[in-house]
């Protein structure tokens, strides 16, 4: 079973998506709702891929400069992406956000909200080289 780290603060909006990922598409999903818990989760387990949001509250523990660079929450995910990449260069990351898309790197993809759950899963599988 593929393990997915799902980083998203908007619980009520994404709850059904989360349920489908687990029950319909048979992923094991660890849902992290706070940006500050992401690095700990990655240290504690091995994940096949990450699905993450961009606009999230900035962790209190981040430096003043980091908070500014994260535009006080508007682009928290971009900074978080870079932090993850530094430590885990190989992990596929799918960004699922309502914000205007940007290309991050070859091992990532960007989907703008909303998109069909099936389409997101297809792209995720493609990123993980698991298209069967």
């Amino acid at each position, binding site marked *: 079973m593929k393990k997915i780290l799902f980083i998203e603060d908007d619980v*009520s909006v994404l709850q059904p998506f989360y349920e489908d990922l687990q029950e319909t598409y048979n992923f094991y999903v660890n849902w992290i709702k706070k940006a500050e818990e992401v690095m700990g989760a990655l240290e504690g387990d091995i994940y096949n891929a990450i699905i993450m949001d961009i606009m999230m509250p900035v962790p209190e523990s981040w430096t003043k400069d980091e908070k500014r660079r994260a535009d006080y929450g508007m682009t928290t995910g971009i900074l978080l992406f870079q932090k993850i990449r530094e430590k885990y260069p190989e992990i596929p990351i799918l960004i699922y956000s309502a914000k205007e898309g940007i290309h991050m790197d070859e091992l990532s993809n960007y989907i703008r909200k909303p998109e069909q759950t099936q389409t997101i899963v297809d792209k995720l599988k493609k990123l993980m080289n698991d298209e069967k």
Partner: protein
Amino acid sequence: MKATILIVEDKIDEYNVIRNILDLEQQYKVRYSNKGEDAIIAVEKFPIDLILLDIGLPDIDGYEVCKRINSNHEKNNIPVIFLTGKTNVRDKAKGFDVGGIDYLTKPYHSLELLARVKTHIELNDLRKNLQKEVEKQTKEAVNAKIEAENANKLKDEFIVQIVHEMLSPLTEILHKVNRFENLLLRTNSNKTELENYYNSVKNTIFLFKHLLLGLESIAFNKNKDPFYIFEMENIHNMIFDCKILLEPKAHYDKQILIETYLKGLPPLRVDHCKITQVFINLIRNAINYSYEGTKIEIYYKETEEYFKNSKYHIWHEIKFENTGTGIPERDKDDIFKLYRRGSNASKLIPSGAGIGLYLVKKIMNAHNGMCIIRKLDKPTIISILFPKK
């Protein structure tokens, strides 16, 4: 205020003649220098409105004095009238060349001197006023431009925010529909679970509708007033319906409880759709700005209070109380303005487009009511007041 005239003349008799002529008018203050250098210093030290300048002076000549004064006072030209016995056209021309405004040859009649002095002081006053007016208008135009640019920037940010805010309910609806499909495809699908999903989809659609209506009201602001339909409504039920719409969000996102204490709240004549927007905005704000695991309390009371801009003083007051980041003191006056988000908005919630409280105030005004901040912090209390008639 009396105009000050500087007389530059080395011969004391000549000075006395001019002085006596000027005193006839009794409206000039007179200063005196008998040397060119002294005249230049006097202009630096004192406000001078006009200079009567002799050409033949013991140190530097009048032309040089005039040239130097003009170069030092480019912006605030002091009119210089040359007074001299030189009648040569070239001498006169030189006087104008170095910046003199007029030239009087001796002997002159006292009335002529007074007339010229008066004219040049008046002309110079006009010039100064005109210059001030031009500067003022230029400054106003620059300020208007900055204001327009700021408004434009706010509007651009607003559009980005509102698009984001609209995509959120759409995302929720799409994933719920997807989930619904997947549940239907199962052999052992659970009817209650299915019902929950389509009910919540309907709720989300209603919230989306009110988001769009709120946007529309902003456009109305510029053209005409929105259309209100007043009917007796059960406010208790309206608040309850809004609570149902927003409770899942409060519960799932932040484990927030919403409690109501509305005993005694009577039916009121309101526009159902508009007041629904008021309740949705106030409850949603309370959720967005609350700490996790806290409570939002909505309660009713009858209040007696006088306001400057209202003829009513008995009110039906509905209070919305929440515990969270609070309203910063610096936001107190701006928070009801269009596109103005709380300055702490993006730190806790990266959302909100800054139209909520603006709309609430506008709708309450149309009901002869009020929206006021009762308490900024710990807990934050925002009240809406309907007049008791």
